[in-house]
């Protein structure tokens, strides 16, 4: 019984730890974290494309920002 209690506490602690970091890094906008990772992958693919790489990288972040705001405004509206 005490072993189960200890295991339960450890499991709860592990879950809390990951939940804290998930909330901290991803928050309530998973689209931002996912979008940034996709832009990072695109940056690697585009790195030898000269002037195109910075232009596309900046454009992708601007589009992601607009999508994230738009998505939240839709979400808020659907709640009303």
């Amino acid at each position, binding site marked *: 019984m005490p072993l189960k209690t200890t295991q339960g506490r450890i499991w709860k602690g592990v879950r809390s730890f990951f939940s804290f970091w998930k909330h*901290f890094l991803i928050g309530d906008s998973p689209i931002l974290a996912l979008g940034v990772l996709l832009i990072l992958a695109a940056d690697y693919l585009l790195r030898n494309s000269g002037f195109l790489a910075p232009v596309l990288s900046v454009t992708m972040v601007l589009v992601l*920002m607009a999508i994230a705001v738009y998505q939240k405004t839709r979400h808020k509206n659907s709640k*009303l």
Partner: protein
Amino acid sequence: MERGCMVDQGTILLLITVAVASAVEATEALTIILASGITRGWRSTVEGTLLALACLSGIVLVAGTTLILYVPLYILRVVVGTLLLIFGLQWLTKAILRETGFKALHDEADIYDREVVTLSKEKGVRGQRDSLAFVVSFKGVFLEGMEVIMIVISFGLGNGSYDQLGTVALGALVGVGIIAATGAVVAKPLAKLPENYMKLGVGVLLTVFGLFWMGEGAGIQWPLGDAFLLVLLAIFAAATLCLIAYFKRVHGKRLEVRA
């Protein structure tokens, strides 16, 4: 010579970002500390606050030193840039939503009142050790401080040296110090601070530095070198203003339709 000048401008931008970000988070922590101290007594509140600050300083020293010593600079830049870009876009989108009316503004006075009501319900003896005051102040300072710590470590490791980590930590201390001193003098939540404008500014700066370092780490050659930071700053400031103007109109139209 010109590059040195741009590096200085970059450092100044970096210091401003860290100081303002720290001030914003310190304002939120101050509300919790004041509510706890005034309602439950100062002894345990101060102890909880000091312990949280000690833990946060320890994290900066341990994590900062380990990362500088053992992780190659190009990997650091990618990780740091990615984290900063995620944080920056989170700050920015929330601040835009608040500015346009889609999200309620952060009201420190209201948060303070709610904290006071919650803390007053629990029994406790003023003047003696109070575990609730200790936990509330520790948690408040630690959680609000974690975001600052991530920003400090990320910015501090931008060039992979201890010097920058120290400079950035100093910027954070200045931001926290100003808010702590103001809070100690006025002894009430800093509700009149233009928190959302500060968040908008920090969001733009975090996004700009994040994008720049992530791209650099991935191998992108930014035109104009470090000076491109200023170009990015102008682009993202303009984009933020455009989004605010557009979504303010959208929000206004929706209110008209509902009315």
